């Protein structure tokens, strides 16, 4: 078990290195930060001077080497746009994205799993068929369309939920949370639903398929025959065995949502990391982009390793040696 985790960590380090290399290669073609830094009226000579000041005239491998050396010491540089340390900039936005992602994943997990179980019990009932048809919509409609539709229905027509922002937040230490005020929670509902919808439908279909398979097993028939209460049969005996693919999906989704909820954050003007990433791409703010992608890769790698460990704990039959 220990060697397994260790090997995954080494692999993770290589992935991180590869990610930064790809970032730097892309920067060559992506857009010139000197444009952002020099202002509209700078002459060519002034632009050259600015290029030198920021070390952007050095060949790519020197810039890359410098970035790695600094990163190893925890110094990710200053943002070109706002001249503040990049790490602080990203971490400042983390609570907003985390709360959004967490709520979205909870919604997707609970509702998706619940609906999946309900639908699997009597798959040919009319209500359940309608739910499955509706899930197709959840998978195919793109996130931005869902977001805009929700805003239109709940904020503009019905005027019961707010269309943008986080609302009133409470700051505890460095963590700015929207969960402690009613206004903050109201602001969380629409964006979390937008994010959750796709994941919810995927989890629902996955659970349904898994449950259908498990419910046909012999040991389930035995449980029914023994006269166990239905809830115990369904949740304690059947669902447990479906959990492995479900938890894998949830883990992967959480990592992905945390790192790349860009579209939802843009639509709802949610002050999270995704919003920061998009603005930085427009402004060619390379230090922020490179650091962010590295951190995103780190988060996803960590979550994947944790999911693998959870596997082993959940099902003793699956152990990696």
């Amino acid at each position, binding site marked *: 078990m220990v060697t397994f985790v260790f090997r995954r960590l080494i692999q993770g380090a290589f992935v991180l290195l590869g990610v930064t290399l790809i970032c730097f290669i892309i920067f060559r073609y*992506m*857009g*010139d930060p*000197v*444009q952002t830094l*020099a*202002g*509209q*009226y*700078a*002459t*060519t*000579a*002034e*632009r050259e*001077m*600015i290029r030198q*000041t*920021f070390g952007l005239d050095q060949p790519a491998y020197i810039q890359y080497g410098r970035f790695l050396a600094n990163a190893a010491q925890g110094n990710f540089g*200053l943002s070109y*746009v*706002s*001249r*503040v*340390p990049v790490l602080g*900039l990203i971490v400042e*936005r983390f609570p*907003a994205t985390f709360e959004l992602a967490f709520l979205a994943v909870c919604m997707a997990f609970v509702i998706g799993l619940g609906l999946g179980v309900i639908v699997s019990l009597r798959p040919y009932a009319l209500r359940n068929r309608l739910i499955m048809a509706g899930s197709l919509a959840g998978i195919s409609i793109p996130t931005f369309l869902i977001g*805009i539709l929700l*805003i*239109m229905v709940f*904020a*503009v027509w019905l*005027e019961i939920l*707010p*269309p*943008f*922002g986080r609302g*009133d*937040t*409470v700051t505890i230490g460095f963590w*700015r949370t929207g969960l*402690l*005020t*009613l*206004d*903050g929670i109201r602001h969380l509902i629409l964006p979390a639903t937008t994010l959750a919808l796709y994941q919810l439908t995927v989890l629902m279909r996955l659970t349904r398929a898994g449950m259908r398979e498990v419910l046909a097993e012999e040991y389930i028939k035995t449980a029914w025959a023994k006269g166990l209460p239905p809830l115990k049969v369904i949740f304690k005996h059947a669902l447990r065995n479906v959990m492995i693919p479900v938890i894998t999906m949830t883990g992967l989704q959480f990592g992905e949502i945390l790192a790349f909820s860009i579209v939802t954050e*843009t*639509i*709802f*003007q*949610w*002050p*999270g990391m995704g*919003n*920061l990433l998009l*603005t930085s791409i*427009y*402004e*060619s703010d390379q230090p922020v982009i490179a650091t962010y992608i590295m951190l995103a890769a780190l988060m996803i790698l960590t979550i994947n390793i944790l999911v693998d460990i959870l596997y082993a704990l959940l099902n003793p039959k699956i152990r990696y040696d």
Partner: protein
Amino acid sequence: MKKTMLTLVMVLFLSFMAATAMAAADLVVAVDTPPRTMNPHGSDADSNLSIMTNFFDGLLQLTDGKFMPALAERYEHPDTLTWKFYLRKGVTFHNGNTFDAQDVKYSFERLNDPEVSEFTNTGKSIASIEVIDDYTVIIKTKEHIPWFANNLHQIFIMDKESTESRDVGDVGQKPIGTGAYKLVEWVKGSYLRLEANENYWEGAPPIKTVEINPITESSTRFAALVSGKVDMVSGVPVELFDKVTANPKLEVVNRPARRAIFLSLGNASGTPAADIRVRKAMYMAIDEDEIVAKVMRGQATPTAQLPDEATIGYNPDLKRYPFDPAAAKQLLKEAGFENGFEITLAAPNDRYVQDKQIAEAVAKYLAKVGIKVTLDVKPKSVFFPEVGEGKHAFYLIGWLDGAFDMGRTYFNLIHTYDKDRGYGTWNGARYSDPDIDKALEATADMVDQDTRAKALQDLNRMTMMDKIAWIPLHYQQDIYALQKDKKIRFNPRADMWMVYKEISK
């Protein structure tokens, strides 16, 4: 177990109570671009300056299209290189420090540092700054710059002591200026809260608290307005114009923008565009009225030149060449291009109103007279550097001059590219005409403002009508929307800045 549960519930309950709902600000505004930094020199983009102007003042300010005294009560221009400013007494910064000539000297010298300033161009043009006494400053420029004073409304004065004693990050987050408003809170990516500066030298502004919400997604901005969450919105997109006008709760405020949209066309010898007949043919092939009506939904004004009415050099007598595809075909035939030719048109797709759609329309019109256009549309972060490097010979671009001076625009945009002298930085198509260069350079030495203005107008005519250096299209329209029942009195500014001390209820 029960006890911990109880304490947990109590803590949550108390935090609920402690988080008092914030009172709504007097004025809640939604803008389309978030502020980058609170460092007033850190960005020369209008979207940032628009916010900075509320916290800071310059030596002059632009009110109702005229340059009025701000931190300088008056100024003199004794010779071509010297500008003498008499500063206002009794002004204090938000932290209580007195404003004096040392702050002016410090602020202008700071412009030279590329780490904190995007105004290095202005900083480098200054030869020396001399403090005569606490309230008199003499600035000498390296060369004769006729528009120097017109730029000063964008150069904000910072407090020397507090800026020097804080680090760059803090200066970029907490602005300390002399302006009409103080910053209460800035949650990056979310909102800014401003409160009135009661000690403001011009008198406290009528609106006491302002909340600025940057919302980049235009449909969300519109939803915020319609659902009553914001009182005012700047930058209404043309596609939503009809919806906004149709809504009885909303009021639209409209004004022609200062920004002109036009096509840059190089004239390298050997290319079709080197022939004046071809250029005129391309001009006359485009139906600008239809572009305004269909692509811009009526929200644009056709133009025959680049500078707007308020700019020195604007020539009211210039008229567009008429839309005449038959004449265009004839001209092409005379130039030897009866079967047309091929050309690539580059344009940004996220910078100007309907930029991509305008480029597509232009391509269609040119195709009708036999010119095959390949479109090369890309995001501004890739487009502008490529233009700066001279990669495109035919592209769509927009421009307005912050100093209201056509001379400065022309030196940047149409003068033959000369890297050493700093001319033609934005002449991406590398258009070159010695007659234009000569006439333009002659205006730089003129001291008498009226002679210079006349010379610029003549240059304007020569450039647009005789040489057809550019194909002008239209001025954009600045569209704002307000909640009718809030009774906000708002006069949009030509530079699209939101100056809250000018707004009242």
